[in-house]
């Protein structure tokens, strides 16, 4: 098993950070082998995604409300 975090693992770490929950083991992995730039980029990407998700949520709520 490679020690380098895969894209998937990076993604999960960033998602975990949005919730504010992360396990010690994953953190160790992130900091030992991950590259900060990857996390920052993924973080910004996820922030953009977050905005889109909230916008979709708003649209959905509005369509439900019939407005």
């Amino acid at each position: 098993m490679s020690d380098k975090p895969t894209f998937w693992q990076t993604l999960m770490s960033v998602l975990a950070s949005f919730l504010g929950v992360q396990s010690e083991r994953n953190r160790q992995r992130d900091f030992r082998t991950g590259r900060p730039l990857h996390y920052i980029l993924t973080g910004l990407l996820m922030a953009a995604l977050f905005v889109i998700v909230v916008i979709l949520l708003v649209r959905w709520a509005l369509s439900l409300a019939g407005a």
Partner: protein
Amino acid sequence: MGRTIIKTIVSGLALALYSGAVSAEWEVNLTPGVTDISSSVFDLHMTIFWICVAIALVVFGVMFWSIFHHRKSRGAQAHHFHENTLVEVIWTVIPILILVAMAVPATATLVEMYDTDEAELDVQITGYQWKWRYDYLDQDLNFFSNLSTPREQISNEADKQEHYLLEVDRHLVLPVDTKIRFLLTSNDVIHSWWVPALAVKKDAIPGFINEAWAVINEPGIYRGQCAELCGKDHGFMPVVVEAVSKDEFQQWLAQAQAEKQAEAAAAERTWTLDELMQQGEQVYVRACAACHLPNGEGVPGAFPALKGSPIAMGDVAAHIDIVLNGKSGTAMQAFRDQLSATELAAVITYERNAWGNSLGEAVSPAQIARLLEPSTGEAEQ
């Protein structure tokens, strides 16, 4: 020490609970108000409040339990655990679920507030430093609403009355059971028109129009205030809404229009200097004293003195011009729409004859009325 904190919190909560019961006298909680919207806002408020209380009880409960039991003085040994992903996920997911549960009714209420159906009555509300102007757009009626609390009460020279600082010279009279749209804008800085009982708070922004609406369910007098810092007398521009039955509203409209006609007629008769001075002082206190001060001395660096000023002592035409049309780029407003011809004549006369500015001449209301003339017809459209 835990006990004291708990006591503080419990007594705080008790106070909050108690408040619900006696809110009428004590005024420690939000008003349920008199519209359907305001009561759903109140329900939302109470729901989120109780949710917060429940979460607080759990979190602080655990915290104080460990403060009691896991203290070194009771021989507690530290247990060295410092993570548990499952627990963390659980205490993250539960708040999210609570928030979703909260968001649903909040969204529904918000959508209702943004209703854009046609209203039966449109009222334009314009914020001025430091008063409100109300225009009944289809009823050919508009007026300013100024604070009517006497200065002596504010400066503690007289006893304060029940509605201290929440009383105005002219109420915004509105019919009940009628959909009313408020169109808000401002003449100068940003104000915010707020009546808690209607759950309406909207900013009045210069150059922009905002809207809000209400259907008032119960007749009564509802008081509010300007909510956005708008300068010196921000605390002195209350809102008073008087909700009356539809019939009474029609009567009130007719009466208000008749009064306006009578006022126009009054301008045509001859006024003595004493009469003008007497009325002028009242108008001055209401409309001018906030900046130029009751003694006419102004505020150096902000508002010029009128006492001995070249304008109040100089050419009468220039004096009339600045009062009617204001001065660009300063806080001096154009008063031509704000005061009647008689009031304008009176206040100019007053300024030219008060505080030792003794010119002895009177400006006649008829003279001012002529200056206003080409306008009056169009302005009331």
